[in-house]
């Protein structure tokens, strides 16, 4: 299952300190990693904590001491970490976290929804969205590599149950291969009683902006590092990862853009539509932060329309990926029309029919019919 793929990734990455608090649907990650620590497969310190806030605080402390650290959470747990998410980034600590996308309460819901991680957009964490268990394992390794290169924390994000609890074959790389890809973490500064420094001191207006600017530059560096690492991964494991994954996009006039496990379903729909003669393609967004804006602008230059399928909601504005895409396109002349669709919130299935419906609506209209179109809604039940 996807949760175990995470644990194997963390084991292969030789994480040194793990602090995590269990929450459905992430629980097996904590269980399996604590077993690995107990039976010696993983020589890491597993710190039991009383909350997600403490879990991340432990990781921050350990990373400041120069350790490779890991935590995992979901939904409410991630929300509880919010303050420390900012802290980890500004402190420039390459902490890696797995977040299982789960809907936020209330109403209590443990099922898939991307709003939890997307709501942490401005905390400065890198976010890698996965759509297979193999990708989850590989993304953990990628995340450490890119994070340590850019000194930014990274979140590996995947869908509740569709990935977290679904079993599929995963190739687990050899330790030596991983060691070659991921050398030990060497922080530029770390807590060292023999060489005392003051970490995170008062920082007044005279320097604050400069440090924030350096952080923003690091995001750019991270994008480059991701591409490099994704390519290098191919030479070692035979699998390649880039910020955007293109599927049948070469001659496409209409592009479907989505993230997470809905992309798997979308490939099937694209194939079916192609058979029927529609020139459609799929762009799967893997990297949400840093957002690959430049690449998207170029890739969509000759496309007339784009369908964005969001399994998330920013209330008052709609689907978040659609918003991000519009933002990067708006200054390009003749940019494609962006059709925004919302589906699958709170774990409702995104079926091939739903995806097909989104594409058909896009094909049938020159301009978007609404700011965001909600698909699969039981309209008759809604109080108007």
């Amino acid at each position, binding site marked *: 299952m996807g949760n175990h793929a995470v644990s194997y990734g963390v084991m292969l990455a030789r994480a040194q300190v793990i602090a995590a608090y269990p929450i459905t649907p992430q629980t097996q990650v904590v269980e399996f990693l604590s077993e690995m620590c107990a039976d010696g497969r993983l020589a890491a310190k597993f710190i039991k904590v009383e909350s997600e806030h403490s879990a991340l605080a432990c990781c921050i402390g350990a990373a400041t001491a120069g350790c490779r650290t890991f935590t995992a959470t979901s939904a409410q747990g991630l929300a509880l970490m919010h303050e420390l998410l900012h802290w980890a980034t500004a402190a*420039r600590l390459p902490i890696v976290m797995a977040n299982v996308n789960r809907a936020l309460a209330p109403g209590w819901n443990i099922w898939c929804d991307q709003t939890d991680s997307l709501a942490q957009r401005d905390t400065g964490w890198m976010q890698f969205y996965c759509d297979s268990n193999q990708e989850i394992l590989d993304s953990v390794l990628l995340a450490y590599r890119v994070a340590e290169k850019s000194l930014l924390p990274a979140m590996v994000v995947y869908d509740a149950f569709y990935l977290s609890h679904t079993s599929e074959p995963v190739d687990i790389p050899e330790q030596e291969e991983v060691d070659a890809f991921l050398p030990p973490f060497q922080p530029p500064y770390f807590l060292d009683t023999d060489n005392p420094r003051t970490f995170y001191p008062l920082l007044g207006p005279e320097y604050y902006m400069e440090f924030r600017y350096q952080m923003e530059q690091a995001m750019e560096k991270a994008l480059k590092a991701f591409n490099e690492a994704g390519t290098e991964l191919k030479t070692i494991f035979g699998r390649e990862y880039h910020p955007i994954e293109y599927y049948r996009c070469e001659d496409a006039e209409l592009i479907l853009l989505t993230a997470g496990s809905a992309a798997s379903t979308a490939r099937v729909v694209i194939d079916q539509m192609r058979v029927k003669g529609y020139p459609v393609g799929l762009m799967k967004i893997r990297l949400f932060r840093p957002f690959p804006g430049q690449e998207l602008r170029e890739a969509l230059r000759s496309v007339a329309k784009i369908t964005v399928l969001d399994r998330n909601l920013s209330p008052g504005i709609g689907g978040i990926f659609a918003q991000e895409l519009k933002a990067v396109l708006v200054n390009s002349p003749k940019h494609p029309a962006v059709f925004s669709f919302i589906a699958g919130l709170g774990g409702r299935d995104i079926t091939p029919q739903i995806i097909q419906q989104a594409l058909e609506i896009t094909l049938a209209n020159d301009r978007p019919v609404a700011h965001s179109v909600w698909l699969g809604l039981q309209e008759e039940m809604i109080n108007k």
Partner: protein
Amino acid sequence: MRDEGKEIPKKLPGMIVSFADMAWNKTGSWRYLKPRYENKTPPCSAGCPAGEDIEGSLRLLAGGKILRAWALIKIENPFPRVCGRVCFHPCEAHCNRGEYDRSIAINRLERFIADAATQKNRRVPKPKIRRRERIAVIGAGPAGLSCAYHLTRLGYPVTVFEALPQTGGMLRVGIPAFRLSREVLDAELAELLAMGIEIKTGVRLGHNLFWTDLKGFKAVFLATGAHISRNLAIPGEDIPGVYRGLEFLGQLNSGQKISLGKRVAIIGGGNTAIDVARSALRLQSEPHILYRRTRNEMPAFNEETIEAEREGVEFSFLTAPARILARAGQVSGIECLRMELGEPDESGRRRPVPVKGSNFIIEADNVVAALGEEPELSYLDQEIKVVRGLVATDAWQRTSKLRVLAGGDNTSFRRTVIDAIAAGKKAALAIDCFIQERGLEALWPKIQIGANGAFSMRQYLKIKDRGKTRSAEIVNLSQLNLDYFAPAERIKRPALALDERRQSFKEVNKTISQELAGQEAGRCFHCGVCNNCENCYLYCPEGAIYPQRTGLGYRIDYDYCKGCGVCMEECPRNAITLEEEER
């Protein structure tokens, strides 16, 4: 970004890091409350007249260090085997655990420790006699021998004069073997006397020993006990078949044959009455205790009374003898009066008042009068003051005559073994202070335990090189952090089966196993005493607490302690005190 003379880099670092360290910033200066380690007095020790370090010996016992536990007890008390059997253990009544679930079975643990040490052939080493001042002790009971023991350990040559042919005093003549086996008593006495104490038996002051004979001694300790049974003061007291309690026990304990009839009436409610009744039971008689007040007013130790009841001793309360009846020159019964409780008397107990015309007869073949004992003091010289039939002493056992001290049953109405042992120990202290010309009054606060007159000999012995290791504050239950403790059952104390008891004078109580002893010692809260539990060290948010290199206790780095008080709060046993910082 303070730099303290370090070079300021031209470019900003990749992380928000200052190259200056903060070692100059001793955050302890923010403190306005200051924690310090302060061991306090556990209530058990304060409750023990002899001031035994019970907490300390239980800690050693729980750690498997039985012999060290024994050595710690022996510093304060020469008779742990005896006390582990017959002490009325006021320590247990004071134990904080008693308020929480049930008190620690301290008495049984003392017995276990002492018996185990004997089994391992451990003896108190023979001390070197370093002093020339000879000390005389009159009476080889628990008070006299305790005094002799402590003085010997302090290096004095001691001579003990005992009127009876054997040592032990009331331990021997007054306590029956089913509570204290002769074997155990003899062994503990022999161990003590082997330390180099000179003992002269068959020597009674006023008969074959005189005050002029004692001139060569620097100090004299009078521990002659209370051996005269009180009279019944009713008609028929002299009829054959009427015994006095202590006489009865004395004869029995010395192996003399006592012929008893079937029904034995015992008059009194104290420990002697109970011991006589339980002895009579073992002599195949049917004992019947007559007491003029109720069960609640009985001065006997409750635990012993309960055993007597279980063994089948009959009790008649609110029953006072008026006349002993005879038939054919032998006791045939007692005419009694029914009593009722009136106003409280000077002892605080309600005074029994006879009910007019309530006379009735209880049949009996023997009567034993166990109304208590009084000291025989005709040997005293006139300089020694007597008050209410007791030798008058100050708080340190000193009589009105210089260099003469007294203690035990002849100075107090609290006639218990441990009180006698405590009196002897205190007399030894007073004698040492007198000879060494130390001011006892000034020294006392440094060695006292609790406010009931107990003191620590251990503390006295090391007073020169160290300050007081435990404050006088007695820790109560509300001062403990009970989050760290869980209820745990007190051990069941093994005893001889009821049906076996009538068959012999075998000890009723048994020594517990090492496993049970360790388990029971593990229940100890260690009130007020640091036992290295690590809580302060683990909780200190400043990392300003360090374990001592010796492995005992912790050290606070006041350069960085901000006085938050978490250590004090999380100390389960109140061994940390928080005080206002002096500025």
